[in-house]
Each structure stands twice: as C-alpha cells, then as structure tokens.
C-alpha cells in the first residue's frame, strides 16, 4: 500500500509541470518544448524564459505543432508539446496519428485544461474524449496524474520512456495527496487503501475524491479498496484483476466521458473474469459553463456520488 492522504495543501499541476520541465531541461540538452499560444496557461513559458533557444511558440496552429514535434523527435530531440487538451488531441488527431504514433516518435504531449473542471469556458473547451482518442492509438502511452507531486515524477519518467506519451492534467488547483516522490512508474496502479467490500479505481485528480469516498464509506462500516490508476494505457491489468477478485465489485471514476476511458480500460482488463462494474464519468454529454466545483457536483464527479454508487452496488450484488 502506498501512503496517500488528503491534505489541506493545494497545488496546481501546471506549476508542477513547468518546474519539472525546467529541471529536466537543465539536465538534458535534447529537451525541446513547443506550445501553441497558450504558454502562459500551460506554464511552458517558464521553460522558455530559462531556455529560450529550446522553446518554440508555434502560434495558433496545433496540428502543425504536432508535426513539427515529430520532425524534431526524428532528429533526436525529446519534445514536449503543450496546449489545452481539446486542441492537443481533437484538433491535432491526424497529425498525432500519422506523424507521431505511427512512426513511434519521441514526442510527449502534455495537455492541460482537460475535463469539465475547466469551468466557465464551457463545453467547447471542456475536453472529455481525449483519453479515448489517445488510448485508441497504437504506441501511445496515456497518463493522468493525481497531484502535483506525481506530476513532478511523471515528467522525468516520460522523458526516460522512448516513444509517444499523452499526459492530461486539469486547470484547477488540486489537493496534494502524495507527500513524497518516487511512487510513479509507467503502467503501475497504486493501492492507496485496502478493503474488500468494493474497489474504487480512479485516475487523475478524481483519486483525491476516491480517498474522501473511502472515509465516507468507512463511517458506514464499508471497507473500500482505493486504487489510483495514473497510467490508463498500458493499464495495470494484474492489479485490476486482483482487486476485482478480492472485492467482487468495481467502480471506476474519471473526469472524462464514460466511453473509451479508464472505465473501458478496466472493464477490458477484467472481462475474462468479470465482476459487476459501475463507471462514474461524464455520461455521454457535453459539459457547460459554471464553477468547477459546481460542475463536478452536477455531473456526479464527487466522493459523495462514489459513496452512493458503492452502497447501491453492495445492496444489489
């Protein structure tokens, strides 16, 4: 079991991204960073200030940015390409497919502003299908870190990994749940709480909500197993199967459409020996404007909803 706790400390994953990038850039001269006119929001601008020669703003032309990233990678660079998730994956899909995933080039797409918690900008900017799009591509690794600590581990890990990666983080500040570094490993899920009544498998910042759900359920005498799945592809099949066998009930939770994301990955992993499953996510609809917290509540992306679903499942199965 890995030590993880809900703390009062909030930290933005984008800040963690830029700090980790700068540290990586100071150690490795092959690291090149691209952005598409959102470098103040994605925070890659900070890398550009420290390493102006290795930072290129490609303007509002995301598909071109992905192709340029591929060309740099084909010449030996480790390329980080950042913009909002909606542009990074939706607008650029064919460029990623043809020029990055198919030739298996060393491009790290780090997308920010993923999910409904983008808030006020509304559905046009709330990317909810990015995991599905990227997960469907051969050669692509897909990662959604839980907090700033983990994000700082993800950046060097994907730089070390040879091949395309997609990392999605949100816009909002998120509670720190890992107080120490070093737990993240590509493809490895982490058991954060042990229990045998139900397993809650979460990814991204939903993992913090899952930890809260554990406490809510515990008060009612229910022991939940809480799993953090930072890598959605390749999914930790062994762990998914293990907790399925142990609890007999699985809930997945992601700030993403229920189609094609973590829920699908987990259900595929346990399909040979299935147990009842519920998938918490955005239910095949577009989002809307609102405050981040209000939206998370309206669309059921909360600890309270996880606990409710868990109780329903325990009653039913």
């Amino acid at each position, binding site marked *: 079991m890995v030590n993880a706790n809900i703390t009062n400390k909030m930290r933005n994953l984008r800040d963690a991204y830029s700090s980790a990038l700068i540290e990586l850039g100071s150690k490795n001269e092959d690291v*090149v960073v691209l952005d598409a006119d959102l470098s103040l929001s994605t925070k890659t601008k900070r890398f550009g200030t420290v390493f102006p*020669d*290795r930072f*290129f703003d*490609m*303007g509002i*032309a995301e*598909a*071109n*940015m*992905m*192709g*340029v*990233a*591929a*060309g*740099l*990678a*084909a*010449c*030996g*660079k480790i*390329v980080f390409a950042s913009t909002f998730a909606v542009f990074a994956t939706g607008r650029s899909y*064919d*460029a990623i*497919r*043809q*020029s990055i995933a*198919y*030739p*298996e080039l060393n491009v790290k797409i780090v997308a920010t502003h993923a999910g409904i918690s983008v808030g006020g900008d509304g559905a046009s900017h709330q990317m909810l299908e990015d995991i599905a799009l990227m997960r469907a591509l051969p050669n692509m690794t897909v990662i959604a870190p839980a907090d700033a600590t983990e994000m700082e581990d993800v950046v060097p890990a994907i730089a070390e990994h040879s091949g395309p990666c997609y990392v999605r983080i949100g816009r909002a500040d998120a509670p720190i749940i890992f107080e120490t570094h070093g737990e993240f490993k590509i493809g490895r899920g982490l058991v954060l709480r042990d229990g045998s009544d139900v397993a809650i498998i979460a990814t991204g910042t939903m993992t913090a909500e899952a930890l809260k759900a554990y406490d809510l359920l515990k008060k009612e005498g229910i022991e939940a197993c809480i799993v953090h799945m930072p890598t959605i592809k390749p999914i930790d099949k062994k762990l998914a199967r293990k907790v399925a066998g142990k609890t007999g009930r699985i809930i997945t939770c992601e700030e993403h459409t229920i189609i094609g994301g973590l829920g699908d990955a987990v259900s595929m992993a346990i399909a040979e020996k299935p147990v009842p499953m519920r998938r918490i996510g955005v239910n095949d609809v577009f989002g809307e404007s609102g405050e981040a917290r209000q939206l998370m509540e309206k669309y059921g992306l909360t600890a309270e909803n996880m606990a409710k679903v868990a109780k329903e499942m325990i009653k039913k199965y």
Partner: protein
Amino acid sequence: MHDKALIKDLKRKALEIRKWVIESVYRAGSGHPGGSLSIADVMACLYFHEMRHNPKDPKWPDRDRLVLSKGHAAPALYAALALAGYFPVEELKNLRKIGHFLQGHPCMKKVPGVDMSTGSLGHGLSVAVGMALAGKLDGKDYRVFVILGDGEVQEGQIWEAANSASHYKLDNIIAILDRNGLQIDGPTEEIMHVEPIAWRWQAFGWDVIEIDGHDIEEILDTFHEIKMNEKPTIIIANTIKGKGVSFMEGTLSFHGKPPSEEQYKKAMSELEQEERELNG
C-alpha cells in the same frame, strides 16, 4: 552548366526509376503510377546528385533529409532508394505485399532511407519544419527536402507549416511542389483552385522558383542557385502526370490505378525504347 555525362546519367536514373514504378505498381496490383512518374526526374536529381546521404548509414545524423509529403508517390521514392543501395532492387517487386517491408505509403520504421512516414496528405511540411529547426539548434548544415503534391496544398496544415517555416527563417528547407495539375477528382483548378500558386507562397514569406520539373539541367541549376538567405525555398516544378508513358501522360485515370498486363508491356517497351535512344 553541368557535365554532359552527369546529365545523361541522371536521365538514365530517372528512366530506371520510371521502369521500377511501372514494374512495382503492376506487380502490386494497386498504387499510384501517375504522381510517381511526374516526380521521377526530381527524385533522380536528389538521390543521385544533390542530396548528401549515405545508403550504408541511413540514420547518419548529418545527412540531408527527404520528406515525401505526397506519400502516394512511394513507388518513385522506393525505386530511388533501392537504386541508391539502401536495399536490394528485387524488393521493389514486393511492394504492398503482406509480410514485406515496402508499405503502400512510406514507413520510416520499416524502410531504410525513409526519413518520415507519410501518406495522409498535408503533414510532411510540418515535419520538415521540425527537422529544420533541429538542424539549426544543433548547428548542423544539413538541408531538408520536402516533396508536396499540388492538390495537397489544399490542406490547411500546409499553410500553417509554411507560415512557421518563414517565421523561424528556415532557409534549410527546400520544398518541391509537383505541379502536375491533376488531383483524383480532376484538374486542380476545377476541383479547388491553388493558383496563383507562386504568389501564395511568396505571400507566406518563401522564395519561389518555377521550373520545368522534367528538365534535369534546369533542376540541377535551380538547386545550385538556392541561397541561404533566411528564407525557405519552394521550387514549383511544372510536371506532367504519368510522364514517360504515352498513354498515362496528362491523364487522370492512372492517378491511383495500376496498368493492365497489356498496358504494362506497352509502358515498359516505351521506357526501354527511350533508354536505348539515350544510350544510343
């Protein structure tokens, strides 16, 4: 002025490329002969004179790169690579065949000498921008050649890439536009106009040179004249689709269709006749 022997040799190479285009597409039973034949002369000039490359070391970091953005002209690229020594020419007979490495469109992971996987139109110039930026970053003097189709420039991403190439002053990019005038559905100007083509590239900050894309001497002179003046260059190569095979020239029907057995024999005999005249 170039050496007469060199011109003759490159003409011979272009004919060999054409013969292999016909041979490989015929054997494959599918593929794109028209747009492969139109760039055969440019391809011969690049791989047998202009480009700095080493078939024994396909990944040589200092090599000039070639991105075949109009990836459907793969048969011409494969023929040039095989004739240059990247892999045995006999492999050209296995184009598009399961279990063999010559994919229908260029695949850099499988084919030695292919610098970028292409096929979906509109992507290659962006990749060339990335390769050119890497060259500048590393202080290397290699150049990045990229071959574009004239229908291909209807893709919006081409213009995103064109804009970024001039913004970053990438004078190490040399694009060649295969202006054969035809795309699958018809003449470019009827389907979706691309003219005034030279003016459009000039407006995006490029140096533009217009040439006869089948005149070996003019192609060589043009490469020779390109200056490193902080601007990317595009050569608009006026070509004939299907060039070299009488019944394919200027026609739409051989864009993406292989020749029949009878057509194959006729095409090969025409090209062999031309070879005899050249050697004569």
